[in-house]
């Protein structure tokens, strides 16, 4: 129950102020478990952050410490860590930036891969989806309806159904283990087209017609009129697509073999394998997780309004 409606209810029915106050208090008490849940929500983040700055002995202390007692950057870069071939020392393991020595740039390379692929996929998939959406809503080309229905029905199909054929197809095209094979199969996103079509329907056709009367080509109308009008919808979809791509795991797991082409989720997954044999690497895994998660959280705080609006929009339009 919200404070706002309770207060307005109080004024409407002319409740005595003491009753309103008591109701507010009850509502506040009822929220206590939810504040505890907020704490539960935050704890894994806190646990990740402090683990990234703990030393190996402190990581395995019992009971665990709830803040790093002597914060160190060893999990990122440990000057005392043994190189390959040396006897491993129990108290220091190679940090995030000391691993993958055969890959130029190491962890930074994976971050660059992830960033580049996310940008390319987001831009390209939105461009082609907006073209399709424009064609489907603002032109009278015959066959639009059947195309639209086909695209909508495809949204019901879990993408894993096409996983195996797509793997074989990319391998037939000699695109496995390459950026192309990573990027191209995922570019046609039915949900984005559907969403943009819904959005474009609420935009009056007059502008388009006026532009056509003035002799503008369809491409120019799309570029100069439709894209600017679509901006809020594109922002919402860009967030969806970018977030999904940043965390993309199953597809690269299947088609990427070379370390140079790994993205962040794959690098994290290989650290996940490393902690089985050496639990001391947990701090390194947490440091890497922190580095991989931080950009999305920062991005969220920068574009919080768009995030929330986009999600709300997707729920209401769909």
């Amino acid at each position, binding site marked *: 129950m919200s404070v706002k409606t309770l207060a307005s209810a109080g004024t409407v029915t002319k409740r005595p102020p003491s009753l309103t106050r008591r109701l507010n208090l009850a509502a506040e008490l009822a929220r206590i478990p939810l504040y505890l849940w907020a704490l539960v929500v*935050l704890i*894994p983040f806190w646990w990740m952050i402090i683990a990234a700055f703990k030393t190996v002995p402190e990581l395995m*202390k019992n009971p665990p410490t709830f803040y790093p007692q002597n914060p160190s950057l060893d999990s990122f870069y440990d000057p005392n860590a043994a190189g390959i071939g040396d006897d491993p020392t129990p108290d220091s393991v190679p940090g995030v930036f000391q691993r993958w020595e055969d890959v130029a740039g190491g962890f930074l390379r994976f971050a660059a891969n992830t960033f580049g692929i996310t940008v390319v996929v987001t831009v390209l998939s939105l461009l*082609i989806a907006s073209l399709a959406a424009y064609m489907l809503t603002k032109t009278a080309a015959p066959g639009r309806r059947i195309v639209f229905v086909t695209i909508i029905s495809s949204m019901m199909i879990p993408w894993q159904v096409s996983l195996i*054929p797509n793997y074989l197809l990319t391998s037939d095209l000699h695109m496995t283990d390459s950026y192309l094979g990573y990027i191209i199969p995922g570019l046609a996103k039915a949900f984005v087209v559907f969403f943009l079509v819904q959005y474009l329907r609420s935009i009056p056709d007059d502008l388009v017609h006026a532009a056509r009367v003035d002799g503008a080509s369809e491409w120019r109308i799309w570029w100069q009129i439709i894209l600017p009008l679509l901006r809020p919808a594109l922002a919402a979809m860009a967030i969806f697509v970018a977030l999904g791509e940043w*965390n993309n795991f199953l597809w690269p797991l299947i088609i990427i073999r070379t370390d140079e082409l790994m993205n962040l989720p794959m690098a994290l997954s290989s650290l996940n394998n490393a902690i089985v044999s050496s639990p001391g690497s947990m701090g390194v895994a947490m440091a890497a997780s922190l580095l991989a998660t931080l950009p999305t959280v920062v991005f969220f705080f920068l574009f919080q309004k768009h995030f929330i609006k986009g999600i709300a929009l997707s729920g209401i339009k769909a």
Partner: protein
Amino acid sequence: MTVKQTAGPERAEAPEPQAAPRRTGRPTHRLQRYGPAYAMLLPFAVLFIVFLVYPLIRSFYYSLTDFNGIKAPEFVGFQNFTELFLHDDRFHKAIWNTVKYVLASVVLTIALGLVLAIAFKSTSLRDRVMRTIFFLPSVSAGVGVILVWRWIFMVDSWGLGNTVVRFFGGENKAWLADPAVSIPVLVTMAVWGGAGYAMVLFVAGINAIPDELYEQASIDGASKARQFWHITLPLLRPVLVFVIITSTIGAFQIFEPVYLLWRRSASIVGGPLDSALTIVPYLYDMGFNRFQLGYASAIAWVLFLIIFLVTLVQLRVTKTFKEFE
């Protein structure tokens, strides 16, 4: 959009059958006229057909074959499906685990999301801060967060899970080695990650309900509970249906947590005694560890059919509820 739509003769909207092309000329004229339009659809259409429609057909064909990726596929009819449904105990286990996981995670996520939305729906600073906190897991969903959960559920006594259990007087638990807690662990992670997302959608839905309805109801003496039951819930129905269906579909496709939490060696998927084995990890195991691509394709199609049927039932059920009102 506040601008009212004008219903001129030139209005063209895709899904309306009566919006016929204005002028129909000879085919060549039509091509000239609509050429650019089709060209605009082309990039999407090509990618859609090559990487979605064609693989779909190919996947269906493979599901009827015995195929290991090297030798040519050998047609076996519905043998893969009869094997799956009648003899494959691992698959039955995967289905059962998935159903338990989907039911628990969807119900809890939506219930909690709804409670959070009702409690923190205003634009006050406190509510905005709280909503941001609850939403954080949704933006950071990914492999990194799964590793944190693995770290929390460490078997050792210094794991956070065990520390909390001991604080409340319990004994150390081997979380990720105990088959009985595999699904609860997955559900916990799902609710942690998904409730905030559902909350955002519900807040948008609740705030779209006009205040006058509640004011009117208060004047008529309706209690808060009745207002919730007779105003909030019915008007929230479309959003509720959307959240239920999308989160159900998403839950059926769970893969990463299962793959990463219990990972000890390359060829084992599914946790202790397969207690965490769900459909997509099983598909991955069959397809990419054992290279039984025909069999794995059959699993993919079963997944599709299950999701399709569940969505239909959910739509049907919610429609029945609507007719009741």
